[in-house]
């Protein structure tokens, strides 16, 4: 499974790489072309979801952010995210969240 992430925080990258060794990190939505799953940090890359959807039209897009940010979650879905999860849920078991995506 080709998993690409838009995640700028190096701590997030470390945790994701630990769970998903083949994950690739990119900085723009357009760089998500070819991905089957795209993970997006809403804090930093929320505005890139639309471009990711265009670049990877069949990918499942999983966005993550603060638990309480309902507005950000709604905007992510509107921009093309298939699922929005709380940061804590994603990092409890990133592989499971990606599989469930």
């Amino acid at each position, binding site marked *: 499974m080709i998993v690409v992430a838009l995640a*700028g*925080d*190096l*701590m997030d*990258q470390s945790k994701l790489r630990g769970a998903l060794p083949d994950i690739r990190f990119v900085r723009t939505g357009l760089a998500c072309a070819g991905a089957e799953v795209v993970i997006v940090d809403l804090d930093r890359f929320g505005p890139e979801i639309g471009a990711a959807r265009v670049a990877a039209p069949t990918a499942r897009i999983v966005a993550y952010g603060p638990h309480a940010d309902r507005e950000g979650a709604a905007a992510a879905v509107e921009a093309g995210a298939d699922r929005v999860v709380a940061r804590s849920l994603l990092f409890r078991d990133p592989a499971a969240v990606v599989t469930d995506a």
Partner: protein
Amino acid sequence: MQGHPNVLKALDDLLAAELAAINTYFVHARLQDNWGYKEIAQHIYDESIDEMKHAQVLIDRIIYFDAIPNLNKMGRVRSGEDVPSQFAIALELEVAQRDRLTAAIATCREVNDEGTRVLLDPMVKEGESTIDWLETQLGLIETLGEQAYLAQQLRG
């Protein structure tokens, strides 16, 4: 000696934030050193040690109140992928901690806990000094451009 529950709660929250700051500054300093920005790395390393001293003050106060400090509770450790984003993260941390300290000092005043208040007062001043330094660096990056700013940080 028993501490007021509201003061203990404030000390607990402050400690969780200090523990996150120690780790955040420490990883930033090691990354900056690895990237060759030795002067920034040393400054940020010193900040990490300062935060550790703050944590020690908080831990000692909690123990003084016959409570056990919770070192398992820690705020989120974040790391930017470049120096400007690391400064921005540090600034967020410092501003949030200053607000927590201000609220904690108000709590101390409400319950007449002068002993705790005088321990927290210097932390506000030190935090504001760090905020000023970070704002200055971010301002310089904006004025000079990231590359020109970073070129000045290679000594060491």
